[in-house]
């Protein structure tokens, strides 16, 4: 089984790198392979909102950069982990830039899910979506927004399962390990 980690850390953010190491260790312990993208280190152009990936080159963004590799890695993974500092409740700009470029993995045509419109599947299978947000101080509202965002992304990206967790940057390693272990040992992930 293969996991992809989209690491939306800002430069010099050592906390997220420690969390990423724990994610690797925990995935290793359940015999999963992992591949990470440190988003601030790679070249990804911003989505231009031109729907080129739907109506000009269906399924592929017209911008040839690392954003294309990320889309490919995402759709071919069994689980994608969105790792980000919680930014006003949402993702960091670094992570958002990569997530915006993922619309090529769904169809422009519509379907109904849970009574509301979403874009239809392009692929027959999609990865589990896990969101891990790192926050400096306790903030219930930010945590709630983050979890809601991950769950909404999971609907739009047709994830068979999704879960999210908020980690405090000053938490002990054992607590962080326990939170991440719980995410990865859920029965929906182990199936």
């Amino acid at each position, binding site marked *: 089984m293969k996991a992809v980690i989209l690491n939306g850390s800002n430069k010099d953010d050592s906390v997220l790198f420690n969390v990423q190491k724990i994610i690797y260790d925990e995935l290793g312990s359940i015999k999963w392979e992992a591949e990470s993208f440190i988003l601030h280190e790679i070249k990804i152009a*911003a989505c231009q909102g031109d729907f080129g990936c739907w109506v000009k080159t269906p399924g592929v963004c017209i911008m040839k950069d690392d954003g294309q590799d990320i889309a490919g890695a995402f*759709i071919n993974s069994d689980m994608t982990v969105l790792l980000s500092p919680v930014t006003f409740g949402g993702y960091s*700009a670094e992570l*958002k*830039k990569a997530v915006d470029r993922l619309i090529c993995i769904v169809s422009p*045509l*519509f379907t109904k899910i849970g009574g509301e419109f979403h874009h239809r599947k*392009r692929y027959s299978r999609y990865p589990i979506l896990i969101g891990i947000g790192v926050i400096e101080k306790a903030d219930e509202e930010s945590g709630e927004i983050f979890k809601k965002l991950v769950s909404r992304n999971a609907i739009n990206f047709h994830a068979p399962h999704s879960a999210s967790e908020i980690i405090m940057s000053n938490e002990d390693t054992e607590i962080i390990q326990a939170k991440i272990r719980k995410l990865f040992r859920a029965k929906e992930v182990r199936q």
Partner: protein
Amino acid sequence: MKSLLLLIGSPKPSDSTSESLGNYLIQQMSARNCETKTLFIRPAISTDERREVFLSATDKADIIILASPLYVDSLPYPVTKAMEMIARHRQTSENRNGQQFLCIVNCGFPEAHHNDTAIAICRKFAGEVGFEWAGGLALGGGEAIIGKSLDKLGFMVRNITKSLDLTADDLANGKVLSHQAVTLMAKPLMPAWIYKLIGEFSFKRQAKKHQVYKNLEDCPYQWKS
């Protein structure tokens, strides 16, 4: 005289729904004796020099309006980046009290509630950087507007224009958005099934134009079965 800064969050250089909505509100605010300025976020944060102008404009405005599309359940990357910049800037600058911030978020799905998470992010941003949260307007079916002037769209956008008229009244009087303005903006522009029909026809027509109609649902990244 109040000063108003409209920030267009769409990465598109032109013909965006965000611009149509923002421009209408700007016109209404001008008519209510407000001084207005518009900046497109993507180019406004593209160089150091432009970033300085952008941040200075956010310092000076009495009211800041963000008009943005919804990208994958939240705000597009350039808007998120701009918010991070404003937050960093305001940690080290002397901030005025009483600056109002509101957002108008539109999505390509017929239901307006898809925008809720993006509006929650805007509200959180306003609170964290010290702006007064004036409220958020959510519009569904935004692809029906794409850059057209609301004045020319007639009956279809009647609830949008009513909502923005009420918003202009509220802002000009130093109030936050009314419940009525929020409710009117969220009303469907047309029945969802008609929107779906027109939307899918439009995507198929564009694909045909680019000679990829038969490839519309291709799976180019399918590396394994």
